[in-house]
């Protein structure tokens, strides 16, 4: 557990922030998805999102997205004050349609990757990443 006084205060305020955020962020995330898809339905399929189940450090969480047939992949962290993370674009000659980066997460939340496939359809993958105080292992 993070239990020095300074961190206790930091964590305390972080927890309040995280609890206060989702509604507004959710709306922003929904808007970003709508803008990306133009309101088209989003299914499941050719999109893989790899993220840790529990973040080792919420400030730098490694994630990877890949798809065999995506022309664009948008990544959102729905619980962040600014949910937009990145949009990766792949041309027809792309050797592999995969990208990895590190993102900052304000707290436990869902990370979403939405791919626009070459046929114009949209698919998504979602992963819950837990940001925890930690400590107390067996």
């Amino acid at each position, binding site marked *: 557990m993070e239990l020095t006084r300074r961190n206790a205060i930091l964590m305390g305020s972080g927890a309040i922030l995280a609890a206060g955020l989702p509604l507004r962020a959710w709306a922003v995330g929904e808007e970003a998805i709508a803008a990306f898809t133009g309101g088209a339905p989003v299914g499941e399929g050719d999109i893989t999102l790899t993220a840790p189940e529990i973040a080792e450090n919420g400030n730098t969480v490694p994630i990877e997205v890949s798809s065999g047939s995506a022309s664009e992949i948008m990544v959102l962290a729905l619980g962040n004050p600014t949910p937009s993370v990145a949009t990766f674009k792949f041309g027809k000659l792309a050797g592999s349609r995969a990208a990895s980066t590190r993102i900052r997460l304000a707290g436990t939340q869902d990370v979403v990757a939405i791919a626009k496939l070459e046929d114009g359809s949209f698919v998504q993958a979602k992963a819950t990443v837990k940001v925890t105080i930690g400590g*107390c292992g067996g």
Partner: protein
Amino acid sequence: MISRRDFLQTSMAATALLGASGFGKWGRIAAQQALTQDQLLQFDSFGNVCLMHITDIHAQLKPIYFREPSINIGVGANKGAVPHITGAEFRKMYGIDDGSYAHYALSSGDFEALARGYGRVGGLDRVATVINQIRSERPDALLLDGGDTWHGSYTCYHTQGQDMVDVMNTLKPDAMTFHWEFTLGSDRVNEIVEGLPFAALGQNIFDAEWDEPAELFPPYKFFERGGVKIAVIGQAFPYMPIANPGWMFPEYAFGIRDEHMQEIVDQVRAKGAELVVCLSHNGFDVDKKMAGIVSGIDVILSGHTHDALPEPVLVGDTIIVASGSNGKFVSRVDLDVRDGRMMGFRHKLIPVLSDVIAPDPDVAAVIDSVRAPYEETLAEVIGQTDSLLYRRGNFNGTWDDLICDALISERDADIALSPGVRWGPSLLPGQDITREDIWNVTSMSYGAAYRTEMTGEFLHVVLEDVADNLFNPDPYYQQGGDMVRTGGLGYRIDITQPQGSRITDMVLLKTGEKIDPARIYQVAGWASVNEGTQGPPIWDVVESHIRKQGRVSVAPNTSVEVVGA
């Protein structure tokens, strides 16, 4: 692959073995001498591959008492499934007679009486005897160490793990994986691993900066045994930098990484592996989930959650073997591998009853020599206990209650927090408490006993956070410890609720008042994962408290109300 019928045969064999122990009721325990080493080790050799598994020794070189948990709640799909069955229900499920040595070794209930009858368990000199006996029958048996070996005692702390390295080397393991070892700090871990005469494996040990597999820890190793090409893949504890102080090993990253595990399994199969063994420190429920996701693993040797199961659990075509902790058990798994496939297995969880299994003299001599410089300090009697002191259980153990009492009185706090770790041997009523005993339940490289201020609201956040690490219905979000122990603080927990809603009715025990979210409380604790935590070492705090008490007695703890189990 293994048919249900094969599995049942194995189960029946195990039951028959237990039934043949000849111990019916308590009155006959006195006939302990009737139980022989040969009986404990009896095994009809089978197949062409033999595996030996030992895990979570926590630096217990000498025989100890170790009480198994009476409360170990399963959630989600694991509700009511092993290892979340305890006591009489566990014995009924496996056909274990009340009062038998298997009752004593594997389950809770009547612990004190049985401990007096059957004596101590473990001791690496006894473990050596078991291993040597198996090797005399099966010279090519593989010995696999699941980790949590170089942590947990006075001598381990003061030699930076060297005592365990020296003693384990005499047992000649073939491979090992890791967890608490990393709390020695990455410099020391690297130094030891570079000199190890066996494989240090971890497919999920990555370089933190580059997010690539760490060079020092290969993902797997091939062995040729009995004409079979065996791949042993290591899986270190996935949540090391979260459950333990990441600042002590900043170069490394971990995680479950089951997609990488699948790549490695496919890779070793492509290279001709006929048997794939995963030496895991995931914890049992995580292993169960992983076995359902990753295909192609034949055997998972499971560690971390300290569960001891008398027969493997079958998930698809994978068998999962759980071998207990603290040197109390050695698992033997004989396998029949033909035509590139596992066709069957025979398994026995061998309880290391220290009074029945003779110590191996060579290993005993090495243990004595690593302990010799410290023997006088270790043996100093600090006090006596009138109560059974134990730790294992989801919510509290008497050792933790005593540690929390020590923190509150020695650090002048309202509330104490003690980590829900699963290591730490037990002491029987009437026993002396030596310095070694105190270190056995407190030793770690970040044992500063801090004192800090927390608001009621933050205390709630802490309890909720730890509760979710234990009771999240998805095992991949569990870290495998138990609930943080609280002193001076009572609460109600509904384990079926989501994070944020499990903990209610928090009460400051000394006044009986409800915890006020806005009020500031004085909190003492230990094992903070934060760098720069200050305070006296927890073992000094506990020693000082026990010395003042002389005789300690721990009243039953009724401050936690559990709902939804």
